[in-house]
């Protein structure tokens, strides 16, 4: 029997949900509000959520002082590029793991995931040296490769989960119908897994967009994405909270908008297979 929900209970739940959501969103909200304050009111003590002197000056200054479009374009190329390349590698890999698993497939999957648990700092020096010596340092291609490899375990895992939900008989039917392996993946598996592939893509674009450790470490100017753009505002002259907030807002706005419009797809993708 379904549990009846009394109006009182409903209100309590709603309030609790809003409180948690607000708590999670608060840092973002604070950053956005601060970006419209003067430097003085940004550091006012005690801190004020709202101020009387709203201004767009920070945005004008941030825009004027740096080449935002270049950083933005680098972010787009790196996040979309690494995700697309990751999908090209991961789709056949996940196909093999889901439909023709070997004895060690599960172990392999666990091993891949375990690499995500390794502290990034542990490989900082080797990575830095490799990038420098191979000419990948401060190149978009280098970052695309680095982020692709870094997120590959997540992409493979997500796709593997989606592919496991696709009945094997449909792929066998395709094989009987004369489809080569390439056609089987291209015409049957991929279109059927579109919701899964789309949410994997979105999540990985977000992960790559937000990645800061490697993007800041492995770039200087040419290939620097928006994470480096934000970092450039914590200058040696001191922290300028309002400007830093404006830069941060400009950096997160595109991905926030993308996330907002695709939230349905994201939630559907992430809970896929959880409930049959």
């Amino acid at each position: 029997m379904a549990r009846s929900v009394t109006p009182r209970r409903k209100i309590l739940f709603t309030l609790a949900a809003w409180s948690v959501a607000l708590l999670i969103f608060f840092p973002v909200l604070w950053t956005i509000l601060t970006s419209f304050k003067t430097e003085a009111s940004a550091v006012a003590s005690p801190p004020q959520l709202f101020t009387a002197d709203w201004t767009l000056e920070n945005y004008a200054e941030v825009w004027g002082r740096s080449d935002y479009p270049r950083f933005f374009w680098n972010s787009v190329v790196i996040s979309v590029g690494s995700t697309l390349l990751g999908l090209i590698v991961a789709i056949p890999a996940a196909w093999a793991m889901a439909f023709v698993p070997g004895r060690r497939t599960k172990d392999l999957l666990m091993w891949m995931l375990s690499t995500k648990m390794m502290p990034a700092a542990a490989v900082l020096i080797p990575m830095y040296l490799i990038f420098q010596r191979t000419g990948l340092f401060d190149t978009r291609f280098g970052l695309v490769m680095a982020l692709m490899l870094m997120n590959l375990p997540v992409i493979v895992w997500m796709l593997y989960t989606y592919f496991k939900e696709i009945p094997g008989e449909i792929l066998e039917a395709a094989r009987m119908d004369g489809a080569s392996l390439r056609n089987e993946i291209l015409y049957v598996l991929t279109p059927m897994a579109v919701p899964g592939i789309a949410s994997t893509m979105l999540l990985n674009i977000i992960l790559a967009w937000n990645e800061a450790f490697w993007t800041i470490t492995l770039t200087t100017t040419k290939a620097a994405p928006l994470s480096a753009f934000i970092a450039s505002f914590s200058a040696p002259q001191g922290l300028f909270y309002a400007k830093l907030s404006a830069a941060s807002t400009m950096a997160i706005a595109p991905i926030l908008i993308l996330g907002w419009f695709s939230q349905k797809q994201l939630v559907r993708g992430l809970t896929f297979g959880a409930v049959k």
Partner: protein
Amino acid sequence: MGKITLKSVKKSFGEVDVIPGIDLNIEDGEFVVFVGPSGCGKSTLLRLIAGLEDTTAGIISIDGTDATDLPPAKRGLAMVFQSYALYPHMSVRKNIAFPLKMAGMSAEEQAKRVDHAAKILNLSSYIDRKPGQLSGGQRQRVAIGRAIVREPAAFLFDEPLSNLDAALRVNMRQEISELHQSLKTTMIYVTHDQVEAMTMADKIVVLNAGRIEQVGSPLDLYRAPANLFVAGFIGSPKMNLIEGAEAAKHGAKTIGIRPEHIDVTPDGAWQGVVGLSEHLGSDTFLKVNAGDLGTLTLRASGEVNFHHGDMIRFAPQAGKMMRFGTDGKLMA
């Protein structure tokens, strides 16, 4: 052409021999049914023929060519799956055209063949729908359509009617039989339902634990089952198998008599108490507790008025009793 020959075909999964070694000839144009209980290896055998499973040993030849190591697409066979296995993102038209597209056929030829198949199978009115918008029977027709357009050497059916309701199953059974009559192409059909096997097959292959128990026409199997397994499996309701003194009287370890070969008669040699009577209108099935003979099933024609607890006398029809030896095989 669609002559398929299996020579010592073996399939093992790890240590387990699912099919220890099978020899079988399937003639061109035959309707062959593989029948047997769950886990007897009938679907595995079909998948070996299809090429969806690798054979561990032995040779599968199709029209005289060794196809053992050929991939499924190169064997010239078409398969209809239990779950229909339609491509959910494609319309009916695209589903049916898919094998033709894979074969690199021109768009006009594809359209011609799809329209022809749709006409044969009455699919024309929902040709642009997606599989999700179709009923079970319609989906199965699409799956058959997809098989027909390829003009294969043989059709393979893997329990295609199991997901349909009883009434639809009877209709589809007839449709598949009619299709066989008109196409005259070899069909291999896997089922666990012996009624389907009896009504559709030219030749039945009874399988048990990966081995062929008997191959023959439905009536051959019905009249002369090679052993107790086939005797118990073919025929509905099942054959009555009697052991003990009554069997010894006939010089056998076990005697078998089908429910329809026992007559209820006042001067019958056997007697028993009616336990259950199932009235089907055209027939009545009686479960009779016959003492030492065990519980027997009798088929009386028409509406017979027996009730629980009634004592009745009955007798086997002359010449219909089958005798099985200690090895379980039919005795002459």
